[in-house]
């Protein structure tokens, strides 16, 4: 109920009718999203890359992976380069944040978003989305760590639930991909989602 009201408000505040597609439903489809950023602090974080992949039924459409590099407005710190492996020169060929986010919006349409600690990614994206379309991302959000918590809690109500990504990968028996980038992490999240969905926590 509340969500519907919020969505209605978001729709009305749209600046550009082009983005009405964000309210189109695609039954049985979701989009798994992951962003690499310059910081883990939403206020400071700038986008470095965005990866996204559609999930249709039990199929991850890896063949249509959304994978773009973003040219940040400030140079990323050396410490961060070592985390995501994106050097300034790699990013110089990237898109402007507005361009990248605009393309992402086209890609996801009205599909619900899936992600691991999605809240952070959505918060960073919204910094660019809001000025672009006049609204934050209206899409329904599926938080994998929360679903995993519910799944584990159902099994062992009293125990502590470890929500580390590697634990989820191990417990849900999902293959670890050799390359860590935004698109790869989006695919991993999609695989985790399908494994949870199979267990009734999709």
């Amino acid at each position, binding site marked *: 109920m509340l969500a519907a009201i919020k969505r209605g408000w978001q729709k009305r505040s749209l600046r550009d009718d082009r983005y009405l597609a964000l309210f189109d439903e695609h039954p049985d489809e979701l989009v798994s999203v992951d962003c690499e950023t310059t910081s883990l602090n939403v206020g400071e974080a700038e986008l470095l890359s965005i990866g996204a992949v559609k999930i249709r039924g039990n199929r991850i459409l890896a*063949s249509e992976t959304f994978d773009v590099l973003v040219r940040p407005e400030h140079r990323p710190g050396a410490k961060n380069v070592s985390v995501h492996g994106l050097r300034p020169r790699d990013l110089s060929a990237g898109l402007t944040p507005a361009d990248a986010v605009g393309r992402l919006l086209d890609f996801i349409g009205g599909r619900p978003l899936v992600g691991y600690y999605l809240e952070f990614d959505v918060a960073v994206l919204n910094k660019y989305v809001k000025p672009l379309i006049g609204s934050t991302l209206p899409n329904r959000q599926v938080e994998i760590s929360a679903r995993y918590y519910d799944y584990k809690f159902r099994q062992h109500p009293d125990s502590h639930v470890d929500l580390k990504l590697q634990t989820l990968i191990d417990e849900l028996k999902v293959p670890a991909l*050799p390359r860590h980038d935004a698109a790869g992490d989006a695919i991993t999240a999609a695989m985790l989602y*399908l494994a949870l969905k199979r267990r009734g926590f999709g």
Partner: protein
Amino acid sequence: MTRFDFNHPPFDQLEPAERQSLEAQADIVFFGDDETILGPGDTVDALWIVLKGIVREMAGDEVIGVYRKDDVFDARALVTGATAHRFVVHEEALLLSLPRAALIALTERNLRFGAYFFASVSEKFGALWERSGSRELQTLLTATVGDVELRTPVCVEGSLSLREAARTMKENKVKSLLVRDGERLGIYTTTDFREVIIEGIPYDTPLAALANFKLASVSRDDFLFNALLTMTRSNIRRLVVLEGSEAVGILSQVDVLSYFSNHSHLIAQRIARATTLAELAGAARQITRLTSILNSHGVKPVQLARLVQTLNAQLFERTWALVAPGELVANSCLVVMGSEGRGEQILKTDQDNALIIRDGFPADGVEATCQAFSAALEQFGYPPCPGGIMVCNAAWRFCESALAGQLRQWTWQPAGDALMNLAIFVDAEAVAGDAGLLAAAKAQLGELVADDAAFYARFAAAIEQFDTPLGLFAQLLTREADGQAVLDLKKGGIFPIVHGTRALALENGVHACNTHERLLELARLGVLGEEMAEEVGEALAFLLGVRLASGLAALEDGQAPGNLVAPERLSAPERDLLKDAFAVVKRYKQQLRHHFKLGSF
């Protein structure tokens, strides 16, 4: 760099750019337990790679294949566009789906990649051997002098006369002598006798006056090719092999070259020269080592088996000559049977042998001789046959007429082990004595069973005795639960092929004992299609190869070689081929069932 691991066949044949373009077209699909991925009637629009989980391939209710991480299915369906089998998730699976159109396009561009999809089973087997052959070639270069069976040097004093030297050489069947003269060590060879004759040197001249004391030597641990280089450089044919400062052998150029070309003739020579059972025991041990070396050099198990059969036959013949009186040898026929008769026993697994004695030859002392023979073989490392099919067992010593009666009984009253005994006898091969005795008995058997369709059906029925081989994969799945995943190659594949071919050979009067020769002959006679004969032969060769490799590994661990292999110790392409081999066995069994009308008796 690709996101997924493409370093396994057939994708390892792709160029990096090809891998990347293929990956860009791949989707990931998640399946829960017992979901069907692909089945009869479905359009095959993709090739699947298992990223995680287990998928089973079903023919009806039977599990005929299991796919795990990095396994690919189904190449055949991809080519034909349809499958007769159902691919079902056994354990929650994440699969990579590669679109068919993209793969077909790749097979056209990259021929080696395409070969994987279009090659017939027998070609795939060939490719595997080729690969192991090239990989192991290097070990030939790392062989050491010690790997060659060195001729034990015959060492004499320099004071020995030429005449005595000649006699010593003759007695020891050697072509060279090591000559000790005080501190000096020299060599004297048969070639040197030419000078003696030409120069008219008296025969009582001491050796020391003529021996060559400028000896080149090589350490036992040195590389064999170094020895060959030394010989070539100094233009000499023999080197003294030293262990420390002691001469332990003579290495001749022939030894080196034959090691590289045909290591076996040295063993054959050693068998022929042996005058005691102890010497034969040494040669017998060498046969196993030779097997291991040749196998690691990529020699195909079929050729290897024939070589070993030849050596074994010589070994048996020589042993028989050492234990049996000449009279008995002349009036009997020693035969080897079963796998030894067929030339398919590469490692010494058991001794199946029998003795046919000419009617009227007195039986006294034969028993003791046979006991000695069986004991000698056991000492050589041939374990006694668990079924007691050995000459030391009176039941396997026949005079001609008794054998004729026995064959009739086995044929007409097939109770108990009768048919198994008959099957063993059908593979009999003479190794010593009068081969005519065996030929006559086989001719009798041929007449006994001619045109008796009911007999052949009874005889061939044993191929049904064990679970159909593909079903073993199902067993594999269940047995894995308690950590025990093993596959019986003999029951699963080797026996049905061997026995089915044996039944066809018996029916069609094919005299060869070796399964491959039988298959060739059956194809020539039109009993089997050529492609079927070839595929069955290749499948057998592959199964024998897998058994050999695991047997050699077992021997290295000090265990007895057996028929069981653990599939997880096999490489992915080997598992793939094992599955193909079992599929061939299954087709062959179907044909045999139809041919012998096995359902109807």
